[in-house]
């Protein structure tokens, strides 16, 4: 059997060192890289295609979940974090395990064994679907978004919500039009409708959510449709219902 390729991602050097030390006597595991932040990690994971990643959740600018969100071929993940507020979300992301800092070597080995079993069985993360109730619970408890993270090649693009012009539904995806350009996300319109700050973002159409700060004018288009002109020059449609909502906030 070939060695297990592993990457350690943590913004604290001592935390990375600990994982490295714990892995010291595991001859079947090879640490191929250590990363200090999500930006670095995305690049390295894409280039090296590891089997397993030890991932810290709280890191500057892009957290562990956001990194995972933009990865295409997801390796097995063991989250390492100081706080248990993310346990549920980690579970939903189908992580192998969730290690609360500080953790013992025994506990660490246990997680590693679980990871090895999963890799051998090749039960990729996609085969197991999270429970629906769990997802529902998460959608309700998860805090409001302050940024959206997208990927462009091996670069992570962080889009603060105040720089988003509007969102457009495209089949199973959502296209985010922002100051940073256009980016596709594998999420639903409903998710964004409930997670973007509601004082700024309004669902104006089945296909569109607009940021009020970027609307320059509204004109009548057809009998039941209005045309909303955005400050970046794009024109999007507002349904009867959506127009009512717009009038509600502007009056």
């Amino acid at each position, binding site marked *: 059997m070939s060695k297990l390729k592993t990457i350690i991602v943590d913004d*604290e050097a001592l935390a990375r060192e600990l994982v490295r030390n714990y892995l010291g006597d595991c001859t079947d595991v090879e640490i191929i890289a250590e990363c200090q932040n999500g930006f670095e990690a995305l690049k390295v994971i894409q280039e090296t295609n590891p089997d397993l990643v030890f991932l810290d959740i709280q890191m*500057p*600018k892009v957290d562990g979940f956001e990194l995972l969100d933009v990865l295409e071929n997801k390796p097995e993940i063991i989250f390492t974090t*100081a*706080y248990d507020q993310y346990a549920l979300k980690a579970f939903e992301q189908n992580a192998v395990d969730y290690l609360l*800092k*500080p953790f013992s070597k025994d506990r660490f080995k246990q997680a590693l064994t679980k990871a090895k079993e999963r890799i051998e069985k090749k039960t990729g993360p996609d085969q197991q679907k999270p429970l629906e109730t769990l997802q529902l619970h998460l959608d309700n408890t998860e805090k409001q978004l302050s940024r959206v993270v997208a990927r462009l090649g091996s670069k992570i693009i962080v889009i603060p919500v105040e720089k988003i012009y509007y969102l457009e539904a495209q089949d199973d995806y959502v296209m985010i039009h922002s100051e940073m350009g256009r980016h596709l996300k594998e999420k639903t319109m409903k998710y964004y409708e409930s997670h973007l700050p509601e004082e700024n973002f309004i669902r104006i159409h089945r296909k569109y959510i607009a940021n009020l700060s970027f609307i320059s004018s509204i004109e009548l288009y057809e009998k039941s449709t209005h045309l909303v002109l955005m400050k970046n020059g794009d024109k999007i449609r507002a349904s009867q219902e959506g127009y009512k909502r717009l009038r509600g906030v502007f009056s």
Partner: protein
Amino acid sequence: MIALFNKFRMQFLYILMWIVVALIHFFVLYSGYEIEAGAAFADSMIFNFTFAILGTGLWFSIKFSQLQRKSVFEVLFQHLTTGAILLIIWLLVSYSLLGLTTKTDELYSDFLQRSLTMRVLSGILYYGLLITIYYLVASFRELQEKIRKEAQLTTMLKEAELDMLRSQIRPHFLFNSLNAISSLTMTRPEQAQEMVIKLSEFMRYSLSQQGEMINTLEKELYHIRLYLDIEQVRFSGKLKINQEIDEKGLQWMIPSMILQPLIENAVKHGVYDSEGQSEIKLMVFVDPNYLNIIISNNFEPENTSRKGTGTGLRNVGRRLETIYNESGLLQVNNKGSEFEVSIKIPANVKT
């Protein structure tokens, strides 16, 4: 006198009300029924003040019955019975008292006999008016109490919320520090021990500080330094500390733990949310009127979420304002890539 009036305001108003009623009563008898002034006066006095005295008991019966939740019928029944009893006692007492005092006046005795129906009717009217007023006063008081309680609840909630916000950084800091120590024990046990001691000393201090305690700047700075030392070990080369402290300020008294949230804020934005090098500057200088403390940190303005800023700072500002009764003691200066908070401690608290 005014304080006395405020305290017994209800009682004064009650007496005043009955004096007015008694005066009207007197004039009605004196000019309307042409009864002699002396007899009219005695009549008015005895009937009204007997009722006034009996009426005070009514207040307590209403207060008491409000404590038990009763149905409308029960309340109605209660008032019919108490009303009837009160009326009978009132009439018996008044008639016998008047009978004793005005025996000689035949014209008046005759009027007294004939006026029973009118007395009963006016008694019912008084009773009705009195309980209406009582119920109004009682429900008004209840409403005020409710508003007061609600206001109290809101402030309590707000404080709990602030506590929660404050405690969000702490567990993070604590467990990450413990993890760093755990890592150090494997390779550099001496450094691990040093960090355990620093962490313990810092935690002991912050747990012991509560309410409005004051400490010397020196003592506060010592514990801030412990905190920063720990963070420096966690983030190795990433965090640089630069301090410039005027020795003259060290013995000034400042509110305990007032600097800690500011430093935590600087670490959060300068270190936790930045990828590159960060520098925290701490400057203290004394001018004739104030002790000035300036804390600044560099940060990466692009793509940072503005969430979570403000509450902690506002809290410090509010605390300073209530302690020193002076506004503007906390100033925030955002210079694009450097964030600076300065606080001023007025001179009169110096020991």
